[in-house]
């Protein structure tokens, strides 16, 4: 095993740990904006995992998934914040 694949596997393990910790914050978050923020970080972590998986397999088609995911994460958090602002007024 070369140092490069070791680096990639270590990075993927660390990002999976990040996903678990974000899930804990999503479960115990005391308010709804906390959960929206946790969702934002969740999407960023998944984009990082997709990038490292692209590098691990060498297949360049997976990076399109990251583009679409970055777009949809922004749309999701913005629309949820807008709905929250409209519904409590």
């Amino acid at each position, binding site marked *: 095993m070369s140092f490069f694949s070791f680096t990639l596997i270590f990075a993927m393990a660390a990002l999976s740990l*990040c996903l678990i910790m974000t899930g804990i914050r999503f479960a115990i978050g005391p308010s709804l904006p906390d959960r929206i923020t946790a969702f934002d970080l969740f999407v960023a972590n998944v984009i*990082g995992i997709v990038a490292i998986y692209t590098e691990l397999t060498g297949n360049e088609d997976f990076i399109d998934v990251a583009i679409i995911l970055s777009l949809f994460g922004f749309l999701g958090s913005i629309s949820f914040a807008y709905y929250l*602002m409209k519904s409590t007024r």
Partner: protein
Amino acid sequence: MLEDINFLLIREIISSVLIIIGVMFMLISTIGLLRFPDFYIRMSAITKGATLGLGLILSGMGIYFNEPDMFLKVVLIIGFTFLTSPVAAHVIGRTAVRNKIPFWDRTNLDEFKEYLHKEHTAHRDHERDNKQV
């Protein structure tokens, strides 16, 4: 001379260093999300740290592949993330202030109260002007 250099090894080393630094940033910002005391401090932690970590991971991937269309896609993702992450944080933070999410008790709120007072009086002036018209 130039044939002796192993360019694949150099690219792998640069990519590994960038990915390790980016993953460290993401790990630190996630620990901050889990352990900071207040919603606003947590939001500030992750909107800076996670964006920088994601940019470093993606640029490391672009350097490893070393192709023009890959660089274009990586620059597209990095530009979009750097553009939209502060906007999303601003919208969520404004929603939280409007919904009266509590601040940390040690936060210094003097300037914010002055700003709220000024905003409120400006709003009332605006309403009065509308009535006069």
